[in-house]
């Protein structure tokens, strides 16, 4: 299953809820303000870093760049994809849960 999260973890519980319900074979894609969840050195870094042992986490590059977040600021293990990669993830998973 593909999960998308589009809210900042600092202002919304979406990321936390998503990670509490995502299973081991899940892909989690951070888009829009959700990409702030990919930041290393933040109060939510450990939540995401721990989940990385379990699920795969991706962040959308256009949304990272729009917010001035360079790749070296991200939690190691997070993969960066473009809109084409987003489409591939949507195809590779049999269903999609968009956490809004």
């Amino acid at each position, binding site marked *: 299953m593909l999960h*998308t999260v*589009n809210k900042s973890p600092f202002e919304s519980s979406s990321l936390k809820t998503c990670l509490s319900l995502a299973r081991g074979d899940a892909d989690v894609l951070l*888009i*829009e*303000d959700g990409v702030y969840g990919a930041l290393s050195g933040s109060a939510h870094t450990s939540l995401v870093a721990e989940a990385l042992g379990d699920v795969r986490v991706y962040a959308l590059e*256009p*949304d990272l760049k729009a917010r001035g977040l360079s790749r070296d600021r991200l939690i190691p293990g997070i993969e960066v994809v*473009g*809109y*084409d990669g*987003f*489409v*591939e993830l*949507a*195809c590779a998973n049999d*269903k*999609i849960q*968009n956490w*809004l």
Partner: protein
Amino acid sequence: MVSEGPYTHQASDSAYQFIRAALAAGHEIFRIFFYHDGVNNGTRLTTPPQDDRHIVNRWSELATEHDLDLVLCVAAAQRRGIVDPDEAKRNGKDGDNIAPGFRISGLGQLIEAGIESDRLLVFGD
């Protein structure tokens, strides 16, 4: 499904970019259903600043180019003042504001899209 109005939330932009990427990869888009404030994507009365993207026109152009089915939910549109000529007549309005390429229909169109499509994505707030 697009759930938020243009400019207010990035959802309309993300949906547009995703759909372009999906079309570029050869996928078929069965339908784009606009719900909640998403119906505000379908008014032809917007005039964004000249140096900004025109989100409504961008949908209309994409629909023409790829023969897309852009559906505004009728219940959501009635609450928010988006009407086509039929709706205007039925509700006694003196004009309509729907943009080219959009049509107004019921929520059943969303369920049908869920049934007929391989994947259903929601862009919203």
